[in-house]
């Protein structure tokens, strides 16, 4: 019996000093293995009187359980220690934060996408049309007959007498209305061309045309739609103002101003102190345009608007010169990707 106590105490002393997995495994062999101390002890059972054997056996088993549990526990602790030590040594420098940026979409594309997505949510279809256009669709169908002074408003690039580079995206109004009866909700982004070029004009620029034709469409709906666009593009506090204007294809026609996003309407250099920025032209579709395209102007009304994409980008992103859009300097392009 004293042998059992002896083994237990020597085990306890020994297990305490274990720090490696291998030492624990060695102890397992030493105490519990085939030629281990407990096996040797158990072999002595045959030397005992038969009445003592069950008690001795139980004690040895008790000790075996004790050792097994202790070793298990020790093994767990030692593994944990070793893991800690290993992790300590695997430490690397994690501080670097730079990444190669994604390729950038052009700011014109960003604005177009933003507006298209807004309008799609309202049930608008996105249409596109030819950039080389006929005089008919660019002018005549839009109530701009040949000798109308409104032709002077747009300096046109001609290819032949009757074929030209479209001066606006409005030809798509006529093209769509010829093909489709109301209800119509369309937007059409695209390149347009005017033959002037200076710091604030480029011979090529982008417009987005909007058109709604249905029963019960009013000027209030036009204002509401533009308020919806403006609040998403420039923030929910943006206000929309209509000023009387003239376009041959709308009547009434309005010039649309937004509260200056730079100063919030207080007046600054961007809005020349007025608090308002002119962003687009709009109006109720002129009945002549509806009739030219085969739509009953007695039954249907419509609204239309056309906005300059560069203009919006200039205001939204603070771009100082329209020529930057077409120079495609990498230092410019890379500013539009995070």
């Amino acid at each position: 019996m004293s042998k059992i106590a002896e083994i237990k105490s020597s085990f306890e002393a020994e297990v305490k000093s274990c720090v490696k997995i291998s030492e624990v495994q060695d102890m397992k062999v030493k105490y519990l293995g085939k030629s281990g101390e407990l096996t040797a002890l158990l072999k002595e059972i045959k030397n005992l009187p038969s009445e003592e054997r069950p008690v001795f056996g139980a004690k040895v088993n008790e000790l075996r359980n004790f050792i097994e549990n202790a070793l298990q526990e020790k093994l767990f602790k030692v593994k944990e220690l070793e893991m800690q030590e290993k992790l300590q040594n695997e430490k690397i420098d994690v501080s670097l934060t730079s990444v190669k940026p994604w390729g950038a979409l052009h700011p014109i594309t960003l604005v177009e996408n933003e507006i298209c997505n807004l309008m799609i949510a309202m049930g608008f279809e996105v249409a596109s049309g030819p950039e080389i256009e006929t005089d008919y669709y660019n002018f005549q169908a839009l109530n701009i007959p040949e000798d109308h002074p409104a032709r002077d408003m747009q300096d046109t690039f001609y290819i032949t007498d009757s074929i030209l580079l479209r001066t606006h995206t409005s030809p798509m109004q006529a093209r769509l209305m010829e093909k489709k009866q109301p209800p119509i909700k369309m937007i059409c982004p695209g390149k347009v061309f005017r033959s002037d070029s200076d710091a604030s004009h480029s011979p090529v620029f982008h417009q987005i045309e909007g058109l709604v034709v249905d029963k019960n469409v009013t000027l209030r709906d036009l204002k509401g739609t533009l308020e919806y666009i403006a609040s998403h593009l420039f923030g929910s506090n943006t206000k929309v103002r209509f000023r009387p204007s003239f376009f041959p294809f709308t009547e009434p026609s309005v010039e649309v101003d937004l509260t200056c996003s730079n100063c919030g309407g207080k007046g600054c250099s961007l809005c020349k102190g007025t608090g308002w920025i002119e962003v687009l032209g709009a109006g109720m579709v002129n009945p002549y345009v509806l009739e030219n395209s085969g739509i009953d102007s007695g039954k249907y009304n419509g609204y239309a608007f056309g906005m300059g994409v560069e203009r919006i980008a200039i205001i939204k992103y603070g771009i100082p010169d329209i020529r930057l859009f077409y120079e495609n300097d990498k230092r410019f392009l890379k500013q539009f990707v995070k």
Partner: protein
Amino acid sequence: MKLPLSWIKDYVDITEDIDTLCKKMVDVGLEIEEVVYLGEKVTNVKVCRIQEITQHPNAERLLCCKVDIGGEIIPIVTNDHNVKVGDKVPVALHNANLANGLHITKGKMRGEESWGMFCGGEELGINGDMYPNADADGVLILKSEAVIGQDIRKEVGIDDYVIDVSVPANRQDCNSVLGLSREIAVALGKTCRKPDVSFSENDVDTKDLVNVRVLATDICKGYYMQGLTDVKIEKSPLWLTCRLAKVGLRGINNIVDITNYVLFEIGQPMHAFDYKDILDKTIVVRRADDGEKIVPLDGKEYVLNNDDLVIADNNRAVGLAGIMGGVNSGIKDDTGCVLFESASFARMNVRRTSRKLGLRSDSSARFEKGIETYTNNLGLSRALHLAEELGCGKVTRGRIGYGETAENKTITCSLNKIESLLGISIPNESIIKILDSLEINAEIENGTITCVVPPYRDDIVRDCDIVEELIRVYGYDNISGTLLENSQITCGGKSEINMDVDKLKNILTGLRYDECIFYPFGGKDLFAKANVQITDNKKYIKLLNPIGEELSMMNRELAPNMLQCVSLNLSRNNGALRLFEVGKVYLADELPLNKLPYEQLRLSMCATETDFDSFRQDVLQVVRTFTSDNIKLERASSSILHPGISADIIINNEKIGYFGKIHPKVSGNFDIETGCMYAELCLDKLFEFKCREFKFEPFAKYPSVTRDFAFLCDEDVAAQDILDEFCSYNLVECAELFDVYRSEQLGKGKKSLAVSVVLRDKNKTLQEKDVEKLINKALKNIMEKFGVKLR
């Protein structure tokens, strides 16, 4: 249209300050381009009286003056000797600014105090048309009644604003002081006075002076004449030339100044003929003969043709209709009898002739905007009134001419129409009040407004025009937004091609390419630099009126603009570039165009600091996004690219694009020293091969077998051919190239290709003997076909 505030005040009482006035003008639709205060640059200059003049003690050419500036006497040193004691002159005081940019400060001149400087007309920004003797050299001697101490701007008439108004293209009636005054009266809720057109006539009957015949009635809608006898040609009074000066004109003589004055005030271009130069008392308005010559007042000779309209006597043209009078019949110092012409010439005709001859005048500019017959008589009467007022001569009796009389027209508009367009209703009393202010007589009965519209409003033709008039005066601020609440629901969205383009752009930005947007045109030089085939120059669609040669031809390739951009970025040291553009090229069947050309959507990609293999990966990644069809790469034929390091992309036997290294000649032309990789793809064609459908396939049940081989072969053996050969066997699942090796041991012009082949039978586990059989057959074929050896 330049509008002096002082001139408007002839017609409308204006008590509002300039900012309020401008805001109200904008509210009714008059866009303000600019507001110029004429005295803006001239500050702190006053009227003074010279009290004493003494010789400067230290300088022979200088005078020392004591001047009274209103309760204070100050010293001024001057080198102008035209001043004398008692003269009233302008003096720029300490910190004054002058029109020529000078800033004046107190100081000493050769030891004598001088608290400012006397000014001449030029320094005040005025000329002799605005103030007597303002053109003279030296100090401007003011009128004796000038008030000492007063701001000089009030004395010389530059205490005035000129408002530059942009008139809407349909409102030709507003291109005059009178027309704008009418609008301003509406904007301010005031009345607009009528111009004074009264005059008395003498005993000379106009009919006896001249006989007018209008032959070209299609391009001359109105032509009126009335004359002046006993004409005295002299300078116009200052009040008149001063007004002309404010709109940018110099005074010439009383008769010519009156025509200019009426042009600006009434909006009617006028012309004055010297009667003695009109042969046979006859004026004929006719088309010019082909080859007919005329020398207008600019002194140059112009050759005309049958498209041009002239005013002629019985013998020769005496004026180019609406543009300029002939030098043969102009007003001269000895003119004794004048014929005034007031007419309506067709705007397109004036425009065409003016553009063709390169001859413009205030008159032609005005005619190009459109002149209705309404103002013909008004303008002529106003001119005659002024002539009488100025004492230029005596008005002849009766008016002769030709023309339709402009009539009022009646337009109806239902109240429902107002509501259906605007979404709001306007109270009846407001409707009547607004229309009345616009000189439109209106009555409302049974829900309909009947409007009698004055003839000068040729822009008002149907009910929606009335609605616009109402809302622009009623105020757009009364419109609050709604979001199509009474409209039908529609299905929106992008077209398939637009969605494909979006997807393409996402892939490309994911591959770290930046999007560019270029002008879709260029010029011969640029295209030549890019080595694109311009020998067949005729294929390019050309603009008739380009800004310059370099922007005159529509693109047939995207490459030139892209390469120019690469060149620009490299010259700015912008580092490695990866760029793309989605743009159009314009392909004509036939030139000149008789129908719209095919606008083909293309993608261009360009990358520097990369190699062919990496760039090929990017290009194929893009192509593979849209199609799983069979893609082949063949040696490219594009002249833009390096012939040995470029490929055409072929899908199902159709070429959809090309890519590779740009031709060294092209990189040289664009100063792209390191060269770059370029690709151009026809997106229309690529999208045709698109497959959208996904279909699940069960996983392979049986294991695969992989075998690797190394082939020793000549440099010009295409690795893809060997891979294709393996893949032509049913059991081969895929074959890939995993290494290319070259060394001295292999020999010059040789390479070793390491290929990995995966075999699998879908229906059973492959047996070693089947694999051996297939591989042996494949290897034998490959070695025979391509002359390669197994290493």
